[in-house]
């Protein structure tokens, strides 16, 4: 199954990051948090 690389997320400084950039140079683990509580 392919990851949705066309998504764009925000970084903590307000910038935008295309998801596909995250694995362009090597494997990446994406950890989805439930909330910050």
């Amino acid at each position, binding site marked *: *199954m*392919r*990851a*949705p*690389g066309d*998504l764009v*997320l*925000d*970084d*903590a*400084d*307000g910038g935008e*990051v295309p*998801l*596909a950039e*995250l*694995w*362009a*140079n*090597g*494997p*990446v*683990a*994406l*950890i*989805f*948090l*439930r*909330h*910050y*509580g």
Partner: protein
Amino acid sequence: MHCRHHALQLQRDREELRAAGDVVLIGMGTPAHANNFRAETGVDFRMLLSRDKAAYRAFDLKRSSALELFTPGSVLKGLARLRGGGVGKAKGGNLPLRAPEQDWHQLGGAFVIAPDGEITWAHPNSDVADNASSDEIIAALRAAAGRTSAAR
């Protein structure tokens, strides 16, 4: 509480994790929420935000009812994690410091993606306490790296 415990676990194991691959945390909410979370847990992994939860939907992560979220097993794990559970405590303790400002029915999960864009490992959480272990994530990152080398 479980999110804070998971962040502390990842931070404790950061050297082994980073040796195996890159790790990125994805959360909901605002940059201020994310920065507070980082300050309270000390987690220094890159953190990105999916404020509209589009990424959660794209990775097919479940939204569950309260009964599904808080299983007997997750409650027992929660009690152990309040005491630190082998990873220590966040600033202010491991109890939630405030009511969740994000969608608390939304479950998290962990995925490893190879450089060709294939999801090579998936751990969608089944309840609030069902976080992937560092060992599982490290093994999945190493397997994805091996897959990449074999393809060259």
